C-alpha cells in the first residue's frame, strides 16, 4: 500500500520520466543539454529515475559561452563525473574562430549566439533530439511551445505551424537534418523546480545561494563585476548580499538581493517573490515584449 499522497511533484516527475523514455525509444540519436543550471540539474535526476540501473541512452552536452561562472563549470564537471556519463562540450569560442559568430565587442552578451554553436553541434553529431530544461512559465512565447518542439532544417521554430500535441502521445518523427527539442519539465514552475531540488536533496552551484559579491547597478538591475563587466562612467562598485536565480552569461545575468542561504529559504523567497525569473535576471529579455520569441525563431533554445 502506498501511504503517501501522490503530490503535484509526483505527477510532474512521472510525466517527465515518461517523456524521457519516449525520446530514448523513438529518437535515433538524442542528447541531453546540461549547463550546470538548476533546471538541467533536475533533468539529470529525472534521467536517473528514468533509466537506472541502466546507463543513460544519450550523452550530455554543454554549449559553453565561455562567459560562464567558474563555480558553475566546476559543478558541471563534478556532477558528470559522479554520474559516470559522457559529456560533450562545444564552445562558442570555436564558432567565433571559424567566423560563424561575429561579435561587436569582446564583452558583448553571448546568449543570443549560443544558437549558432548549438546548431553546429547538432549537425556535427547528427542529433535528432535535444532534451532541454526550458519551462513554459518562463516566458510568453514558451507558454505556447509544445513539449516535443519541432525544428526545421535551419533549426528554426515556427510558432504558427506547431504539431498539435494530444493526451500524452508524442509525435517524435523527423526527416534527416531536422530535429526536435524536448522539454520534459515544460509544466514545472520555478517553485516546482526548487521544491524538487529540496525533496531530492540535489546539489546546486553555490552561486544560487546568498553570498557577498561586488556588483554595479546598471539599467534596472544589478550586474556582477568580473573581467567582462567593469564600472563605466559614474557607476561604482558595491558589496552586496546577493544570489542568482539563473546562471547564464556572466555579462548579462543579474543577481538579486537576497539572504536566502539554503534551498528551503529559496523556496520561501520564491513563493513570495513578485518578479518573474527572467524579468529579474536577464537583461537580454527586457529589450522588447517579444525578445524570446524572436530568438527562438532563430534557433535559440
Amino acid at each position, binding site marked *: 500500500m502506498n501511504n503517501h*499522497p*501522490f503530490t503535484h511533484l509526483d505527477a510532474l516527475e*512521472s510525466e517527465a520520466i515518461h517523456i524521457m523514455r519516449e525520446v530514448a525509444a523513438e529518437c535515433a540519436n538524442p542528447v541531453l543539454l546540461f549547463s550546470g543550471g538548476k533546471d538541467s540539474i533536475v533533468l539529470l535526476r529525472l534521467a536517473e529515475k528514468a533509466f537506472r540501473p541502466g546507463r543513460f541512452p544519450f550523452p550530455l552536452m554543454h554549449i559553453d559561452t565561455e562567459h560562464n561562472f567558474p563555480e558553475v563549470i566546476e559543478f558541471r564537471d563534478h556532477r558528470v563525473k559522479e554520474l559516470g556519463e559522457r559529456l560533450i562540450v562545444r564552445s562558442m569560442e570555436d564558432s567565433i574562430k571559424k567566423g560563424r559568430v561575429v561579435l561587436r565587442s569582446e564583452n558583448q552578451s553571448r546568449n543570443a549566439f549560443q544558437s549558432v554553436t548549438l546548431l553546429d553541434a547538432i549537425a556535427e553529431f547528427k542529433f535528432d533530439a535535444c532534451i532541454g530544461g526550458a519551462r513554459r512559465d518562463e516566458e510568453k512565447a514558451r507558454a505556447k511551445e509544445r513539449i516535443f518542439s519541432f525544428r526545421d532544417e535551419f533549426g528554426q521554430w515556427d510558432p504558427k505551424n506547431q504539431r*498539435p500535441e494530444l*493526451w500524452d502521445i508524442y509525435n517524435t518523427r523527423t526527416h534527416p537534418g531536422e530535429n526536435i527539442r524536448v522539454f520534459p519539465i515544460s509544466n514545472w*514552475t520555478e517553485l516546482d523546480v526548487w521544491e524538487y531540488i529540496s525533496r531530492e536533496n540535489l546539489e546546486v552551484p553555490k552561486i544560487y545561494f546568498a553570498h557577498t559579491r561586488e556588483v554595479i547597478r546598471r539599467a534596472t538591475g544589478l550586474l556582477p563585476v568580473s573581467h567582462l563587466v567593469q564600472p563605466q562612467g559614474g557607476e561604482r562598485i558595491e558589496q552586496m548580499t546577493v544570489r542568482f536565480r539563473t546562471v547564464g552569461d556572466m555579462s548579462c545575468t543579474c543577481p538579486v538581493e537576497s539572504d536566502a542561504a539554503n534551498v528551503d529559504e529559496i523556496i520561501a523567497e520564491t513563493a513570495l517573490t513578485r518578479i518573474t525569473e527572467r524579468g529579474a535576471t536577464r537583461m537580454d529579455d527586457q529589450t522588447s515584449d517579444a525578445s524570446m520569441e524572436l530568438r527562438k525563431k532563430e534557433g535559440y533554445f
Partner: protein
Amino acid sequence: MFDQTGLLRFITAGSVDDGKSTLIGRLLHDSKSIFEDQLTSITNTTRKRGSEGVDLSLLTDGLQAEREQGITIDVAYRYFATPKRKFIIADTPGHEQYTRNMVTGASTANLAIILIDARKGVLTQSRRHAYLTSLVGIPHLVVAVNKMDLVDYSQSVFERICKDFAAFAENLKLHNITYIPMSALNGDMVVERGDHLNWYQNSTLMDLLENVSIEDDINRDDFRFPVQWVCRPQTKELHDFRGYMGRIESGSMRVGDNVTLLPSGLTSRIKEILRYEGPIDEASAPQSITLTIEDHLDISRGDMLVKTGDTPRISKAFDAMVCWLSEQPLDPSRKYLIKHTTRVVKAIISRIDYRVDVNTLDHETVNTLNMNDIAHVGLKVQLPIVCDDYAHNRATGCFIIIDESSNNTVAAGMISLA
C-alpha cells in the same frame, strides 16, 4: 490507492467576447500569481492601446502575431498554485476554425470551464464547446455565466441560462455540471464571493477548482502497462537483468500478481516493482516504474502487460471518432501511421460513416475530412493494437494519426468498441 489531489488540469472555452481572458487574468491576479513585471508590461500595453487601467486579458496573449491582431491563435498553458493545489490551464481560443485547439487542450484536462455571456445566453458556440467536452470525455464541467454585472446580477437570467444549457447537455450525456454566476471583470464569485450575488449559495469558482475530486478521473480498475523501454544493463553485476520500463496508464498492481503479455497472450508473474528509490510492493496509475517478471518472455516496446483475466481488445479493425487537425485533407486512398500507447502501426481509414455538424449535431455524408471536421470512421491497421473503449479508459482508447510523408500529426482519434 493514492489520494491524488495535487494537480488539476483545466481548459477554458469561450471567445474573447465572453471575457475568457479576463477570467483567467482574474484567477491569476486574485490568487496572487501575477508578477509585478508582467503587470507593468500589460499596464504599458493597455495604455499604448489608449485604454485606462489594466486589461487582464493581455496576460494570456502570447505570441507577437497575436498581440498585433488582438486574438489568441493557439493553445497556451498557464500555471498557478494555491496552498491546496497546483493548476495547469490550457487556454484555447473559441473561434469556430479552432475546434482542433479545443480538442488539443481538452485531451489532458480534468475539468472544462465553458463561458457564457449572461446577456447572450446559450449560443451556438456554447453548444459546440459542450459537444467537444463530451466528445473528449472531460470528467468535470463548469458553466460560468459571466458578465452578470451587465444584467443587474439577475437570478432569473442566470436560471434561464442554466435551464437552456441543461436541456442541451442532457442529449450529450454530460454529467457533473456545475453552474456559477460571475463577473470576472469585477471579481464576483471567481476567487472572492463579492457583494452582488448573495442569492447564489454554492462555491466560488476557485473553491470548486481547489476541492473537486479528481481521484476517479483515471480508470482505477483495469491494469494497463504499455512497455516503453527495455532496460538491459548487461554489466557484470546485472548480467541477466531485464527491466520493463513504462508508466501505468490505468489500474494498479502488486508483486506476485499474474500478468498476461499482449498481443502474444503469454503469462507470467510480477517479480519486482522498482523505482530509483528502491523496490515497492504495489503501484498504480499514473506512476512511472520498472517491472521485472518471473519468466523469461520476449518483451519489447509496444507490448502491453495486463492482469491475467482482465484483457483489453486486441484488434486489427475498429471504429473511432476522429478530429481532423491538418490543413491537408484526408486522402482515403492513402496509408497513414497511427500511434497508440507505445505502438506505431500503419493504418488506412476504410470508411467515413458520417461527419458531425458540431453546431447542430446533425450527421452528414462526406467523402473526405478537412481541418476541424469530426467524424465517425472505420480503421484497419497492419498489426493488431491492444485497446479499450475510449469512454471506459481514455489512456488506452486514444490515438493520433501521423502523415508518413510530412511527419505531421494530422488527426486525433478516440476508439469506440461497440
